[in-house]
């Protein structure tokens, strides 16, 4: 792999850019791998990358039914933060946020990490108390957050109406080193770096069955034939229930559509990420000038990647009270992604009832921010065969044992 650098740009500029090579290989699948990862989204590719980089496991295939990063990795609102209430969550999300800080250098791929600060608005007294509790928890966990007064909020975001009649801003939880990144680039960067270390990324290939013998996985059936494997990692977000069904077990997961939208581009007016959990709306401004707006999740299971129409109205209705200047903006695009929701709104990472088969799912509405930490923990879990310290609290058995990691109160719906 040729490194990307200022020198490379100068070199290619002098010869009409004929020397750029493909970012990753697209090989035909081999008949057998040490590890097969199903799903080439951010989490699957990060798992492959850290398997190769941290554990020297390079005989790995990442199998993707569509195109690389075409699911939730390319559909989210790119928010990165780690201000969670529970210690287990703070540990893995802060690991991810820390890795994001230097991910561009690590991957030699500009993921455009922008630690512009994440502001979570408290718009009810309950929310204000909840965020104060989170701020105290974060102080103990070593996650740097602070509470802002309404005046401090107004100073950072002048376009915000803090005295709205229905949703006044009573304060905010502020994480200065939270922010955004280029979501596609995260998938592309991991794919390029993993491919360079020998990982086969196999797109347009659907897994149609999981082979097992005496309770241990032996391979997968795909639309391009059978592939044997010693270990299998299922990292498919909203489709986790379908893969679990092939493997012969059930998950505490329900798939729903979560939607987002962008406005027409305007001049820079918002240089932080604002999340308003009470009204289910969150917003940041992209480098192109579009306002990127995240909305609510559907109230029933579906796999449509579309989202219910009335959620657009609910989200926008609430946001224009807090941001009156956006009321005349046109929406450019709206889309949905199928998110995998668990009962405690925390992910599942670890072993499954099928031997040699590991799963990483349940990130629900908050998967993007956790990609590096999730891949890091999943790779260690798969390589060693036992859950890593970061992953251990998130095992599938926690539901049976009643060890919930309850973030549904701490984080509301917005991730």
């Amino acid at each position, binding site marked *: 792999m040729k490194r990307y650098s200022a020198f490379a740009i100068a070199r290619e500029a002098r010869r009409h850019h004929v020397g750029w090579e493909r970012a990753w290989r697209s090989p035909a699948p081999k008949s057998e791998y040490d590890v097969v990862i199903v799903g080439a989204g951010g989490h699957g590719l990060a798992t492959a990358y850290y398997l190769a980089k941290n554990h020297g496991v390079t005989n790995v295939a990442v199998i993707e039914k569509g195109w690389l990063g075409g699911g939730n990795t390319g559909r989210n609102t790119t928010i990165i933060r780690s201000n969670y209430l529970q210690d287990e969550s703070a540990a893995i999300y802060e690991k991810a946020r820390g890795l994001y800080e230097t991910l561009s250098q690590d991957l030699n791929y500009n993921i455009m990490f922008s630690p512009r600060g994440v502001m979570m608005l408290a718009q009810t007294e309950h929310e204000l108390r909840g965020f104060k509790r989170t701020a105290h928890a974060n102080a103990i966990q070593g996650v740097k957050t602070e509470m802002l007064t309404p005046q401090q909020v107004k100073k950072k975001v002048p376009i915000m109406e803090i005295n709205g009649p229905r949703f006044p801003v009573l304060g905010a939880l502020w994480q200065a080193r939270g922010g955004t990144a280029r979501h596609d680039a995260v998938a592309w960067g991991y794919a390029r770096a993993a491919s360079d270390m020998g990982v086969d990324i196999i797109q347009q290939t659907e897994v149609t069955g999981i082979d097992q013998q005496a309770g241990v996985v032996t391979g997968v059936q795909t639309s391009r034939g059978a592939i044997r494997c010693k270990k299998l990692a299922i990292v498919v977000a909203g489709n986790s*229930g379908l893969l679990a069904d092939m493997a012969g077990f*059930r*998950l505490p*997961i329900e798939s729903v559509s979560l939607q987002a939208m962008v406005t027409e581009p305007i001049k820079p007016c918002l240089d932080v990420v604002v999340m308003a959990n009470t009204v289910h709306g969150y917003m940041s401004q992209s480098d192109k000038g579009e306002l990127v707006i995240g909305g609510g999740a559907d109230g*029933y*299971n*579906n796999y*449509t990647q579309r989202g*219910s129409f*009335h959620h657009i109205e609910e989200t926008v209705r609430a946001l224009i009270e807090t941001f009156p200047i956006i009321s005349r903006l046109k929406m450019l695009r709206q889309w949905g992604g199928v998110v995998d929701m668990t009962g405690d709104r925390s992910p599942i990472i670890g072993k499954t009832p099928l031997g040699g088969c590991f799963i990483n799912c349940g990130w629900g509405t908050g998967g993007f921010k956790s990609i590096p930490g999730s891949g890091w923990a999943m790779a260690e879990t798969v390589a060693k065969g036992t859950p890593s310290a970061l992953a251990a609290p998130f095992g599938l058995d926690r539901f049976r044992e009643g060890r919930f990691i309850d973030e549904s109160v701490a984080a509301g719906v917005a991730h």
Partner: protein
Amino acid sequence: MLILTCPNCGITAEETEFHGGGEAHITRFSTGSGDGDFTSYLFDKKNPRGVVFERWQHVFGCGKWFHAARCSATLEVFGTYSAQTFEPPADIIKAIKNKRPEWEMET
């Protein structure tokens, strides 16, 4: 946008008038059951991509519960029926088979 007909009051309305109540026809385990049964009742979901049977409540209407048969991939509604049953009635099964000949009721 889903459009459902409440079999209790007969009113047809769009989804904002209703509230989804999750998977229908689950076996409810209670006192005296084992950990595995209780876990499966509380947490283990079918979550299929295709035909689903769900509980719904007509919250901004008659307030009563009912069941719906729906496709989670296309949002097509095959029919709604009374909640006072342990399994989907024959006419609902027939309506689904008309649209999805390859579909089989999971046992």
